[in-house]
Every structure is written in structure tokens, then in C-alpha cells.
């Protein structure tokens, strides 16, 4: 093994430095802080505390949505062992809207009008977790190795969920329908303060869990056999991650509505920037990148272009274009 004297290869200098020592993460965090400052204060923010308050709520919404879309996408890709599919492409947010519609549909029976916002939201989320688990057990677990099949399943499910949702909504009376309408399209405008508080609380709890589990996620990503032979309780962690994804999708969909391709855009950027398999780096990077896109995008559209509601459209356009490019380049196999 040591017969020929080649130039000494670069020495192995040890593994896994702490995520807080990563330059890219600090750069992203700094950029985000700047972007948030610009969003808050540019255009008269410091003059009126009323404007500032409105902007703070909106900023909170953008950050919650960004962090949840970014993290949910990375988690989902870890679970399905690929880098193309996102919860949104697989129809998860359509599922959330379906669950919400179902709940509203039976609202009279459930006397929903007497529930407060928090209870309704938690009800939606709980149903979402249940439905996600059921679908995963029925389909995803088996089809995981066949990405084309997964894409197909996702498209069909998304269509199915949307169709059923549409059908149920036609049966609703106008006042019930009004409870849903705001959620059906991506909207960064009217973010509800109560919803934001619940969302932030749920996400905070989830991120604490992730901070303690990110190393186990690295092992999970190796795949079932490797992970199990390293002693990981694979099936249990898989279900926990799935529940986490369901909560995150619920949060972002409830706050702004469905965003089909933001996740894909974020995961592509994250992987090309971080070039690592470690979730200690991937998860914060994805969250920061998603927040950065949303906050700068919103600043641009709201203050410079004076287009209040087109950010979602543009993000979806870019993300959709990326998805098609990946498809055409044969990255989806």
C-alpha cells in the first residue's frame, strides 16, 4: 500500500465542525438582517409606529413562511432520498386546504363558529398530520425508490385534493366560503396576527426539537439499511419527521396559502451553496435562503415596483422554470 511515493495527499483534518463556525451561514444571516432592516425602515418606517407595526407583522409572516418552507423541503427530501420533490409538488398544501375545507364544511355540525382561531388552526393541523401519515403509509413508503412514480402520484393527488376541495366549496354557503377564500391563493398581504402567534409558537417548538435531532437526520438520510445498522430507530424518526413536515406545511399554507415551487428553488440554492449532507448546515441555510428570497422580493415588489401582490407569482414562475429545467436535463430519474 505504500510502494510508490506520490505527493502527499491533503491530510484528513477531522470531521463536522460546529454549524456556528460556518461562514456561509453567517453571511446568510447577516444578509437577512440587512434585508429585514431595509424592509422595516425604508419608505417611512421610522416615522410612524403604525406603519412599523404593520410591517413587523408582515415581516414576521414572511420569516415564518420562509423558515417553514425551507425546513419542510429539506426534511421531505431527506425522507424521500431525492432533491427534486418538495411537499408542495407532492400536493401537501392542497391536502391542507382540503382538510380545512372539510372542517369548514362540517362547521355547523361541529359548531365551528364558536371555536377560536387557535383551536381551528390546531384542528386543521392535527387533521393534516393524520392525513399525511395515512398517505405516506399507503403510497410514499412503497414508491420512494421510483421518483417518476412519485411525481406522478404527487400530481394526481394534488389534482384530486384540489378537485374535492373545489367541489366541497361549491356546496358551502357564502359566509362559510368567506372563511376559506383568503387561504386559496398565495397572499402575503393580510397576515393574521393571531395565526402568526400560533405559527411562531409551533415552529419554535419544532426548531428546538430539530436543533437536538439534526445529527440523527444525517443518519436517516443514508437510507433505511445503513441507518438501522448504525443503531438508529429509523421508523420512529421517519414518522416524527413526517409529522414535523405536516406541521410546517400547515403553518405556511395557513399564513399565506399554497406556494408550489418556492421550496424547490430554496433547496436547489441551498445544496449548491452548502455542498454538504449535514442537516446542522442544510436546515438553517434553507430557512435563511427562503426568508431572504421572501423579504427582499417583498421589499422589491412593494416599495420599488409598487405591485402589492405579484411576489408569489414571480417566485412560482422562477421555481416552475427551475423544475422544468431539472426535468429537461434528466435530473429527475
Amino acid at each position, binding site marked *: 500500500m505504500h510502494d510508490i511515493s*506520490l505527493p502527499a495527499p491533503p491530510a*484528513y483534518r477531522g470531521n*463536522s465542525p460546529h454549524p456556528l463556525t460556518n461562514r456561509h451561514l453567517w453571511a446568510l444571516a447577516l444578509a437577512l438582517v440587512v434585508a429585514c432592516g431595509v424592509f422595516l425602515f425604508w419608505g417611512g418606517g421610522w416615522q410612524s409606529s403604525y406603519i412599523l407595526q404593520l410591517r413587523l407583522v408582515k415581516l414576521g409572516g414572511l420569516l415564518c413562511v420562509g423558515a417553514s418552507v425551507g425546513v419542510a423541503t429539506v426534511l421531505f427530501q431527506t425522507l424521500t432520498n431525492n432533491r427534486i420533490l418538495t411537499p408542495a409538488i407532492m400536493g401537501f398544501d392542497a391536502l391542507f386546504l382540503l382538510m380545512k375545507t372539510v372542517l369548514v364544511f362540517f362547521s355547523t355540525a361541529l359548531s365551528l363558529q364558536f371555536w377560536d382561531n387557535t383551536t381551528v388552526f390546531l384542528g386543521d393541523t392535527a387533521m393534516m398530520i393524520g392525513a399525511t401519515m395515512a398517505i405516506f403509509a399507503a403510497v410514499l413508503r412503497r414508491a420512494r425508490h421510483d421518483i417518476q412514480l412519485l411525481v406522478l402520484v404527487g400530481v394526481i393527488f394534488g389534482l384530486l385534493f384540489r378537485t374535492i376541495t373545489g367541489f366541497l366549496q361549491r356546496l358551502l354557503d357564502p359566509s362559510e366560503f368567506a372563511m376559506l377564500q383568503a387561504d386559496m391563493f398565495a397572499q402575503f398581504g393580510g397576515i393574521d396576527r393571531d395565526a402568526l402567534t400560533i405559527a411562531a409558537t409551533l415552529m419554535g417548538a419544532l426548531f428546538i426539537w430539530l436543533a437536538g435531532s439534526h445529527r440523527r437526520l444525517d443518519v436517516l438520510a*443514508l437510507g433505511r439499511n445503513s441507518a*438501522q445498522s448504525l443503531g438508529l430507530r429509523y421508523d420512529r424518526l421517519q414518522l416524527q419527521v413526517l409529522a414535523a413536515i405536516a406541521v410546517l406545511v400547515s403553518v405556511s399554507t395557513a399564513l399565506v396559502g399554497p406556494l408550489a415551487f418556492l421550496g424547490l428553488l430554496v433547496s436547489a440554492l441551498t445544496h449548491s451553496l452548502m455542498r454538504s449532507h449535514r442537516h446542522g448546515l442544510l436546515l438553517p441555510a434553507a430557512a435563511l435562503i427562503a426568508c431572504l428570497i421572501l423579504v427582499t422580493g417583498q421589499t422589491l415588489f412593494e416599495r420599488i415596483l409598487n405591485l402589492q401582490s405579484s411576489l408569489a407569482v414571480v417566485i412560482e414562475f422562477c421555481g416552475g422554470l427551475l423544475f422544468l429545467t431539472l426535468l429537461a436535463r434528466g435530473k429527475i430519474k
Partner: protein
Amino acid sequence: MIDVSHLSYVIADHQILNDITTQLPRNQITALIGPNGAGKSTLLGAIARQLTPSVGEVRIGGENLTQIDPQVLAKRMAIVAQQLHVGSRIRVADLVGFGRWPHSQGRLSAADNAAISDALKRFDLTALHHRFLDELSGGQRQRAFLAMAYTQDTDWLLLDEPLNNLDLKHARSLMAHLRQMVDHGGKSVVVVLHDLNFTLAWADHVVAMRAGQVVFSGPTTEVATSIALSDLYQTEIEVTSLNDRRFALYHR
């Protein structure tokens, strides 16, 4: 000792393992041999608890396999499968580092890093440690997975056709490492081998399988005879000696 008793495994009405009872001795190299489709990989998978047998049980050091906590088992047994694949895009050094997971749960100490560095050296991977797995040749990738299992530092090491992609030098060096681990490190190795000459040269014990059953087993020098091997593979094989070493001739 690993004790396999009355193990059967059935998928979709297909009996893949049929009432297997055998013992794998401690502190020896055991070669698992037999024609393609004999069930060698399946048996190894059952021993490593990657699949659940339909009937029967496996005991390791007297303890029932199903009773052992996964984290404890991961410190006692490592496996390198025949199909090498991981879900994430990962560098060689990181893969090898995962071998320390059962011991350090991902927080690598200086000792862990020294172990990783040592494994990289042993499997001739130092120059490749920064490469992504999908940028390696088949044999290099095989060595990366072997180094990972080696780093796991377990009592038992199960290897499924580890010589498949290796060139002569690395094949010999792997077997020499295994020999050294068994003789000086107190380890036990079970290895699926296709080259009978490697079996005759390195294995202390042989378990021969065909069609989901054990055909014969025992110390290599006693059981690996011309007649037994010819019958096992259903083709003529002659075992001869040269300079006190035993060879199998089956090439023409």
C-alpha cells in the same frame, strides 16, 4: 458465537431460506459460499436484523437478536451489504465517519477522528477522502464502505462479496486486514466469497449454501474437498496442494 436455528424466510410464497441451522464461530474468519441465488445475502441480512425471518431465531453470544437494543447491536455488529448505496450525496471521509455514530452519536471526538484517519489509511482512501462517493470507481466505493464498517469497531463484521470490485492488491490487503483483526483484534468475521482460492487461503470455517439450505459447514481444511465443492457448484472442481497451500482448480 452466532447461533442460527431453524431460520426460514419467505417472500411472496417463495421460500428463500429453508430451515437453516448453523453456527458461526467466534474469533474466526467464516466464509459463506454457494452458487448465485443460494440465499447468502438473505442470511447475512437476517443476521444483521435487516429483515425479519418468518420462522426461527438468531442468537449472538447467547442473546436473542430481537431482544438487543439497536444502539447496542450497532456496537457489536457491522455489515457491508452487496448493494452499496446511500441516500445522501456524501464525501468519503463523512461516510467513514458515520462508522463512529454508534459510539459518539455524531459528535466526533479527537479519538474518533483518529480512528477515521486510521481507517482511511488502511483502506488506501486518504487521497480520496474529500471526494463525493458518486465520483469514485466501484472498487474505491467498496473500500469506502469497508472503511466505514471497520471504523464501527464491532465484535462482528459481516461482509457481502467484498472482493467483487477490488483489484488483486486491494483484495489481498483486505483479507490480510481481516486476518489481522481476527488474530490480534479479537474480532469475528463472516464474509461471502465467490473465489474459492480466497476461501481456501484465508477462511477458518466454511458454511456452504444452496437453494436456501446449508449443504455443509465446518473447518475449511476438513469440509472444502473436491467432492463437496464439485457437488455444491454442480461443476467439476479439483482441490490440490502446492507448497502447503491449497488451491481450487476450476478454470478449464
